[in-house]
């Protein structure tokens, strides 16, 4: 469910870009990534129960996504930094899961191809923005720095998931640091976990903007109890 919530929530955030992207090609790309993630979320949530019940009728405290994915879009650099951090994690995670005998293995094997594309898209934009103009460099650095404290949560053990979080973190840090350096950006040095946020999303403790996001997402479904769409 934790992985399903990650995909569901990030997909929703990316969906908010529709009609607002800086170039037409990015309308297509961001929607494409959002759709892939929504597809993953639907499969993952269906393993647990009814996808719509889980998406639309749980309250904030029952969601298990990491706080990183619920962070508001901000500017394009912010969205890209969030995507770089998360897609790199997902790529490593799914690659590990695909090799296990768990129930997630078939999904992971299929999704890893999508995620490789997402990671590449985020990496290419990190390079363009980091090593673009002075303004884009400043914005990208700011985004990378401000989201850094939400990255540690991805490497907390998740109950029921047979993975090696330490190994994941080591590979993740290498890949992200290489990309940031190539983009002429400074790798953040601050803590990857805030005092308050340690593993919090996975336990249903979220940031303030998340409740508002859910209110919008769930409003129509909740207004018509029992209706089918």
């Amino acid at each position, binding site marked *: 469910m934790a992985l399903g919530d990650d995909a569901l929530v990030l997909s929703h955030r990316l*969906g908010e870009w529709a*009609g607002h992207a*800086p170039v*037409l090609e990015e*309308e297509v790309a961001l*929607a494409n990534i959002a759709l892939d993630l929504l597809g993953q979320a639907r499969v993952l949530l269906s393993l647990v129960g009814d996808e719509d019940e889980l998406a639309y009728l749980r309250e904030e405290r029952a969601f298990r996504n990491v706080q990183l994915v619920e962070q508001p879009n901000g500017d394009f650099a912010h969205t890209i930094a969030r995507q770089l951090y998360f897609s790199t994690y997902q790529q490593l995670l799914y690659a590990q899961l695909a090799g296990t005998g768990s129930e997630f293995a078939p999904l992971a094997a299929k999704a890893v191809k999508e995620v490789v594309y997402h990671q590449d898209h985020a990496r290419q934009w990190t390079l363009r923005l980091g090593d673009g103009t002075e303004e884009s460099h400043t914005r990208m650095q700011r985004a990378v720095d401000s989201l850094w404290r939400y990255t540690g949560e991805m490497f907390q053990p998740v109950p029921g998931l047979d993975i090696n979080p330490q190994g994941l973190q080591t590979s993740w840090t290498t890949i992200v640091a290489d990309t940031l350096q190539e983009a002429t950006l400074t790798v953040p040095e601050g803590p990857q976990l805030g005092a308050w946020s340690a593993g919090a999303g996975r336990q249903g403790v979220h940031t303030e903007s998340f409740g508002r996001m859910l209110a919008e997402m769930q409003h129509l479904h909740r207004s018509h109890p029992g*209706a089918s769409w």
Partner: protein
Amino acid sequence: MATATPQHRAAGARPDNTDGTAEPGDAAFQAVFDAAVAGEERIEPRDWMPDAYRATLVRQIAQHAHSEIIGMQPEANWITRAPSLRRKAILMAKVQDEAGHGLYLYGAAETLGTGRDELLDKLHSGRQKYSSIFNYPTLTWADVGAIGWLVDGAAITNQVPLCRCSYGPYARAMVRICKEESFHQRQGYELLLALSRGTEAQHAMAQDAVDRWWWPSLMMFGPPDDESAHSAQSMEWKIKRHSNDELRQRFVDICVPQAESLGLTLPDPELKWNEERGQHDFGPIDWSEFKAVLKGNGPCNEQRITQRRRAHDEGAWVREAAAAHAAKHSTTATREGRAA
């Protein structure tokens, strides 16, 4: 991308003639062009074409591309509120397709010697238009279905004949676009059907949406034939194949039985089958509303164009970054190439 002006024209320093009359030197080219159009051959980017033909196509294709881009907004308005994950996925895919259609169409317009930036600039400054239908608001979820069924339905009725349009790149773009549009239209119909057969509140929501979108959809076919400025010339050039009123009639005849099977009514008391004509009679369209919307006084004109401009302006630093990055890397590559 093909160059704007064919080689044999680029050499001559003749002034552009925009009224479509061929100059004496062009007579031979004009004859070849006329014969090609008459023979149902496709005109391609490097072929000679009358300046007015080129200008008409640029205007029409650009307006079509702009409509796809602005048309994302009323539907994207519901992405974050879609009531089920399945519907959300369908809607996201649709909005993504529209961006893709915009890209094909700007590509087709570019073969006529204009650029996407120039066209977007004309959209943003109001010098080029987009379909008036997108100036109406999406107030409920059912509007997403009504847009799919009626707006996409009207678009298809208009666009299928464009697959045989005399200008090759436009005709080919339309083949791809029509396939996806008819898929969207079926999805819209299916969305409305689910609502119509759902709870009382859902049924009412569907009926209300159809009531609000019906007349604006009929206006999508443009002014009546006797008031349509470009029709005759466009039909002669085989850009257009049927008149506005013909297509509108065809659309009404298609929609009536579909509305019936949806279990919804169309908001026109004068709508009824005419045995003699073998077509439906329908009530008069409020052309004053149409003109007001075209002039910029529809419910959402201001909002749509403001959002489009804002997305463009706020994205400027991103496009500049991409250009700066590409420039740095091409110089690096050149330098390395020279060193080696």
